[in-house]
């Protein structure tokens, strides 16, 4: 990453930290959803983007995090900080258990994707049938003291997820992940601990998604199984990450920001047709640049600056 890009990113983050002093309540609530999507797409990318094991049910950890927080703070009267800790631990342990079953083999990606989707649906049905945690009518959480709590929490998560992804890419560990993505058997015979790499990234991804879910649940101040385990949450993070550029650091950020801006603009300007137009835009954009937005950005940067930016075809993987 070149120096001007670094400074621009630092300035943008600093601006987002001081922004709430001027911004309207509407802008805050819009940015809360942008940060949520950046954190989700980035966390999905940490495991699925970097290892190639595309999960179509990663939203299960969003739901588990949301419920861990709601159950501990509302029903057990825990302090919210303890609730957040639980919302990190439970999805993490859950991911570890799922990982022992799924990631200790080289399961085909298509099957892994479907199994994760199935687990999300099982979790939804199970939660909807447990009376002690509100079954299908859900739980009401006392409202946030201020929406700024959600703003800063999710901003930190979004920045943190992206920073983790950037840091991992620059280490030996990141090289191991790259090897798994390219050829898992070759990685293993070269001495990469493939199971350990996959497990750690899966758990990390689950913890970060769980934390996002817990904060969003508090922000919504209400949670039910169909919101918490909505398949759309699982799908949106995948689509945003792919749309931006799978496996890259900035791809999921770009994808999440662009898509949430487009969604917001459409839903306020043409509320009746916004999902349809959004779908059409998704199709047009993916056909226009199948490798994701980051590919276009890299090509443009190379043309403008004449620098040695990564080759267009290779930047995707």
């Amino acid at each position, binding site marked *: 990453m070149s120096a001007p890009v670094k400074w621009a990113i630092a300035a943008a983050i600093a601006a987002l930290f001081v922004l709430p002093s001027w911004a309207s309540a509407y802008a805050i609530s819009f940015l809360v959803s942008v940060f949520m999507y950046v954190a989700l797409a980035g966390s999905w990318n940490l495991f699925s983007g970097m290892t*190639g094991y*595309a999960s*179509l049910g990663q939203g299960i950890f969003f739901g588990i995090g949301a419920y861990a927080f709601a159950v501990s703070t509302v029903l057990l009267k825990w302090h919210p900080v303890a609730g957040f800790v639980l919302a990190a631990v439970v999805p993490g342990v859950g991911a570890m258990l799922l990982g022992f*079953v*799924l990631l200790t*083999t*080289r*399961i*085909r*990606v*298509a*099957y892994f*994707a*479907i*199994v994760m*989707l*199935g*687990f999300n*649906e*099982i979790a939804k*049905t*199970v939660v*909807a*049938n447990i009376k002690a945690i509100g079954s299908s009518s859900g739980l009401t959480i006392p409202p946030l003291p201020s929406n700024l709590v959600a703003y800063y929490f999710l901003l930190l998560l979004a920045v943190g997820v992206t920073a983790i992804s950037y840091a991992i890419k620059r280490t030996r560990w990141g090289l191991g992940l790259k090897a798994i993505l390219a*050829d*898992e*058997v*070759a990685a293993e015979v070269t001495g990469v601990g493939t199971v350990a790499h996959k497990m750690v990234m899966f758990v990390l991804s689950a913890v970060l998604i769980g934390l996002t879910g817990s904060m969003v649940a508090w922000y919504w101040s209400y949670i039910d199984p169909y919101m918490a385990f909505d*398949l759309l949450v699982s*799908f949106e993070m*995948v*689509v945003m990450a*792919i*749309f931006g550029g*799978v496996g890259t650091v900035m791809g999921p950020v770009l994808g999440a920001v662009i898509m949430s801006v487009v969604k917001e603009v459409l839903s306020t300007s043409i509320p*009746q*047709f916004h*999902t*349809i137009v*959004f*779908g*059409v835009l*998704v*199709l047009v954009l*993916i*056909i226009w640049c*199948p*490798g994701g937005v980051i590919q276009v950005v890299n090509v443009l940067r190379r043309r403008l600056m004449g620098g040695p930016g990564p080759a267009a*075809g290779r930047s*995707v*993987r």
Partner: protein
Amino acid sequence: MDATTFLQLLLFGVVWGGLYALIATGLNVIYGVMKILNIAHGELLMLGAYMSFWMFTLWNVSPLVSVPLAAVAMFVFGIVIHKTLIAPVAHSASMEAFEYATLIVFFGVLLILQNVALLLWSADYRVISYATDPVSLGPLSVAANRLIVVLVALVVSALMFIGLQYTMLGKAIRAVSQDMTTARLMGVNVQRIGVIGFGIGSALAGVAGSLASTIYVITPTVGLLFTIKAFTVMVVGGLGSQGGTLLAGLSLGILESFASFLIGAEFKDLSGYVLLIGFIVWKSRTSSAFVSEVK
């Protein structure tokens, strides 16, 4: 549980199972010729179901007549989707990039079709009361529409089996499914088979939707549930295996029928997911077909 209840549940399961097998046969053809997950498969079923619903409600057209019409309509629609949306991303840099791009394409298709249906036909639950009179089969009694569904599903499945086994087109589809490169070397036009295979898969979804509309409530969001069922049947039955698909479809239908009777209706869908996950986990440890290839 007495013998009559047992047989009744079995029959009920067979009806749904036949339908599941039909949907999965279509998905299997699509997966075979293109090696992609079509998460919008159920949306084509939903369109077929609405088609049959409106033709019955507005013009009193029998669902038996709308079955072939839905097949033709969805065949054409499938080909249009392939030509306009799949073909442009087919030249992706790698198979992974193609898989990712098509996943997004189908997600977009799913969003559009669901919401167009919602806008045009609202979220109201739609039902057809067609041939609801009970028919007695020995000690059992079953609504005539259910018998029609399972019979049509089995006939169409049989036609698909014959077509895939004995016609040149069917042989080409099977060849492409087994090994694209070798099929190409044998002179099969892989692109063309991809388009036709996608059309046939979509047509089968239309047929299944048309049938489903007579025994199930139709809503704009009904598709995904059927997509997941079809995935379950396709995976358990074995990719490219028609006999396996039929057997797995019937097993899933029967499993669900007994699970909803014995455990509770809310666990009907859950039993299918447990079957899917259990099967994949077991197979990923015992069968090389469930593990990624050595490159």
